[in-house]
């Protein structure tokens, strides 16, 4: 697996912090179908995060609840995982928002916004089969579509946070 590390941070990009997601509020305002979401959460097993990796990451107390979504996330839909990872086995449409306090995995094309590490977890990562996102963010550091589009990725990628910059790695 020849890894090409591409530093995607341009002038000013990634230097701004976006406001931390208030997950309580996000939970209430989201438009996603309650039944679909409930399906997602009730079917997925809960599991503990690897705590050794998490010394510096702020965690809200309580159980880690991961979520798996198996249908496409459509424009205007918003999926929030307040304390856990989010896995989507379909595509995320442009104008959709997927938010998780942990990692985000997309087994399809990521066209919408992906916000990982929404509680400030700098070790959170974003994985997707194809990257064509409106915005990607980890722990408040973000890149917009324009910054991402400078480099075309035809292979699956992973996004990590190194200091103040997001690193997109082809795999």
């Amino acid at each position, binding site marked *: 697996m020849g890894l090409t590390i591409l530093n995607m941070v341009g002038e000013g990009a990634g230097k701004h912090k976006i406001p931390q997601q208030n997950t309580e509020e996000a939970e209430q305002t989201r*438009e996603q*179908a309650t*039944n679909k979401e409930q399906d997602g959460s009730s079917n997925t097993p809960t599991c503990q995060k690897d705590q050794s990796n998490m010394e510096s990451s702020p965690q809200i107390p309580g159980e880690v609840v991961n979520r798996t979504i198996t249908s*496409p996330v459509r424009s205007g*839909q918003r999926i929030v995982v307040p304390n856990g990872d989010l896995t989507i086995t379909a*595509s995320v*449409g*442009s104008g959709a928002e997927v938010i998780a306090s942990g990692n985000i995995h997309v087994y399809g094309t990521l*066209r919408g916004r992906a916000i990982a590490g929404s509680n400030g977890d700098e070790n959170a990562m974003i994985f997707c089969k194809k990257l064509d996102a409106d915005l990607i963010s980890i722990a408040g550091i973000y890149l917009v579509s324009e910054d991402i589009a400078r480099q075309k990725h035809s292979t699956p990628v992973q996004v990590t946070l190194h200091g103040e910059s997001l690193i997109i790695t082809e795999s």
Partner: protein
Amino acid sequence: MAKIIVITSGKGGVGKTTTSASFATGLALKGYKTVVIDFDVGLRNLDLLMGCERRVVYDFVNVINKEANLNQALIRDKRSDKLHILPASQTRDKDALTVEGVEEVLNELKLSFDYIVCDSPAGIEHGAFMAMYFADEAIVVSNPEISSVRDSDRILGLLSSKTKRAVEGLEPVKEHLLLTRYSPERVEKGEMLSVDDVKDILSLSLLGVIPDSQDVLTASNQGIPVIMNNDSDAALAYNDSVDRFLGDDVPIRFTNTRKRSFLGKLFGRK
């Protein structure tokens, strides 16, 4: 058991009403008792496209408000006795539609029809919501351009979360994609999204591709659903789409550029 089909898109002007008129006519021509309902209260158009605007006495809102009964408001189509039209009111607004009122009318229609086609207004507000709420199947009409495709994606999200089937946790609404105003020439030049691009973005099964055709406007102005014009590619494409909807395996046509013959060029035939 009657099936409720909503024709929707989010974006305006993509061909919802044209599709409703042709699709409903197509189902009726195949022998199914079909009623097509105009949900665009305040901006009534379907009656014009069906050529029955001079015969409207009572409308959908009158029936909901119990000012008329269903039989008084239903207009029998001139061309097919299997097809009926329930026009919208032009003088009210969308708030006249209530969940209970619409449900009552649909339940009554279910007793005597095989297919109930709901022509949704544009947007994602109350009118569009009412049109999709009771749907069993949805035909999402989209043009091959990015804004239309994004709006369709939005509507698909609402179909899977805001409809009766979604709210009650029943089997989800069956979604179909109908691509209209498709121009293979422009796709070839890279000016328009291709069928595959749209299918990839929306991850949805394709019901049909309707080629961009001047016959559509002509038919609208004449008040004859374009599907009745047997010489038109658009009509053939609508016919194929109806067949596919009914379960036939028909290949997609009119998605490749046609070589114009020398004579065709000479006489400028389109």
